[in-house]
């Protein structure tokens, strides 16, 4: 399997650990990632918020620059923007003509835009993943958080269920985590306002954190750098405001996968998560030991 890789801006900065772990896991699974020459920012919320043409032209530039027939995007927001662009440019000839004028070259339709989670969960057979696992998550309790953009809207994104997606849950179960059912897997975290209306982020992300803590999870597993940074960076302040005890690290699904595949924590960038992940790691290790013990005895 070979994909053009679109890390998006955040994976080169705030979310380096996602980039590191994604590359590591893909390598192990034999998924070849080819960088897109000259890729640009997808424009994120801002572009589609204020200027329609810009919102389509920026992703179109990147799609057209891709060298492979499919793009793997780890960021849910980028993925959503790229998908939107591709769907709309294919349907709307007029829009496409406009975008092509902006690009100064023809749009390259027919490149499949895929989220990394979709690829790993749906393209790689479960037994192949299983075969690469060197250890388990030792039954740690996790909740999977998909966020709003990964599965919506129905006719654009949807590689999984819009209200109750399960792709990440399946992967985590495969890794031997105890995946808890919780009700907020697709609720928005307010990423668009991370710098402008932080109060909104507090409100939205707060609900998610509270729910994850209530569910009794040891970690929130995520597939989007925006979600991660909201859940992670702002966690101490939010929990303080909500008067809630505890800390719950937000980790990328690729980090946990990588851990089970035997990559080191350093390789996977665990140290770059702001909330302390050592209790989680300890739990994983002691869980592993417990499950291993009876087998020996």
């Amino acid at each position, binding site marked *: 399997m070979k994909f053009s890789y679109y890390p998006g801006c955040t994976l080169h900065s705030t979310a380096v650990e996602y980039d590191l772990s994604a590359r590591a896991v893909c390598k192990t699974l034999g998924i070849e990632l080819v960088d897109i020459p000259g890729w640009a920012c997808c424009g994120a919320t801002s572009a589609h918020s204020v*200027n329609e043409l810009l919102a389509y*032209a920026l992703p179109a530039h990147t799609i057209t620059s891709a060298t492979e027939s499919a793009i793997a995007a780890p960021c849910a927001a980028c993925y959503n923007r790229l998908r939107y662009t591709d769907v709309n440019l294919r349907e709307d000839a007029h829009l496409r003509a406009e975008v092509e004028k902006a690009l100064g070259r023809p749009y390259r339709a027919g490149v499949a835009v895929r989220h990394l989670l979709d690829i790993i969960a749906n393209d790689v057979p479960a037994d192949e993943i299983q075969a690469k696992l060197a250890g388990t998550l030792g039954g740690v309790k996790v909740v999977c958080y998909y966020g709003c953009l990964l599965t919506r809207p129905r006719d654009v994104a949807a590689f999984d269920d819009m209200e109750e997606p399960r792709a990440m849950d399946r992967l985590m179960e495969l890794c031997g985590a105890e995946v808890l059912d919780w009700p907020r897997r697709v609720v928005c975290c307010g990423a668009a306002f991370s710098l402008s209306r932080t*109060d909104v982020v507090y409100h*939205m992300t707060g609900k998610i954190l509270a729910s994850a803590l209530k569910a009794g999870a040891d970690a929130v597993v995520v597939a989007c750098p925006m979600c991660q940074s909201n859940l992670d960076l702002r966690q101490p302040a939010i929990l303080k405001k909500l008067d809630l005890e505890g800390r719950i690290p937000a980790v990328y699904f690729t980090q946990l996968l990588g851990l089970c595949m035997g990559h080191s924590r350093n390789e996977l960038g665990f140290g770059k998560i702001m909330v302390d992940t050592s209790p989680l790691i300890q739990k994983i290790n002691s869980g592993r030991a417990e499950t291993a013990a009876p087998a020996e005895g």
Partner: protein
Amino acid sequence: MIRLNRTPKSSAAIARMEEHLGHPLSQCYQCGKCSAGCPAAYTMDEPPNRVIRFLQLGLYDRVLEQNSYWVCSSCETCTARCPRNVEVKEIMELLRHDAYRRGLTSGERAVFVFHKTFLKTVKWFGRLYEPGLIMLNNLLSGHFFKDFAAVPGMLLKGKLKLFPGRGADNAAVRRIFKYSREEAPRGEV
């Protein structure tokens, strides 16, 4: 009192909006499901269904004065669940486009400024440059030290780069910006 002395369609802005959406606004039957699930509704001047209601009544300008569309987080929850398949998120978006072109902040200057600076950094560097964004955003919004508490930690963890990265096809990006701006002359990007 609202004086209903014109049909909604008589407003060019609303007609344009309907054309863009591909369905008339009258498709919404005001069930409120969009608002019920909207994570941002709590901080909106009017919840999404009312935004649509005002538009149905032809009160386009009144809607532009409300902050609702600025604080919409584009999460698509509304569109995904609408029983009448109304493009709710798209409506919010179209309102933002128009407000941005006209320079209307509707009390949400911070959001307005954020989008502006975000796009500026993208325009300059082809990609997002976060420290630059944070600084610029704070400068323009007047909250000079907001979020800087987290910065040292982030730098320490290697999460922030001090200098913008290279590699984007800057020429292409500038071209896109130039063209997009020409298309939208008042869009101060």
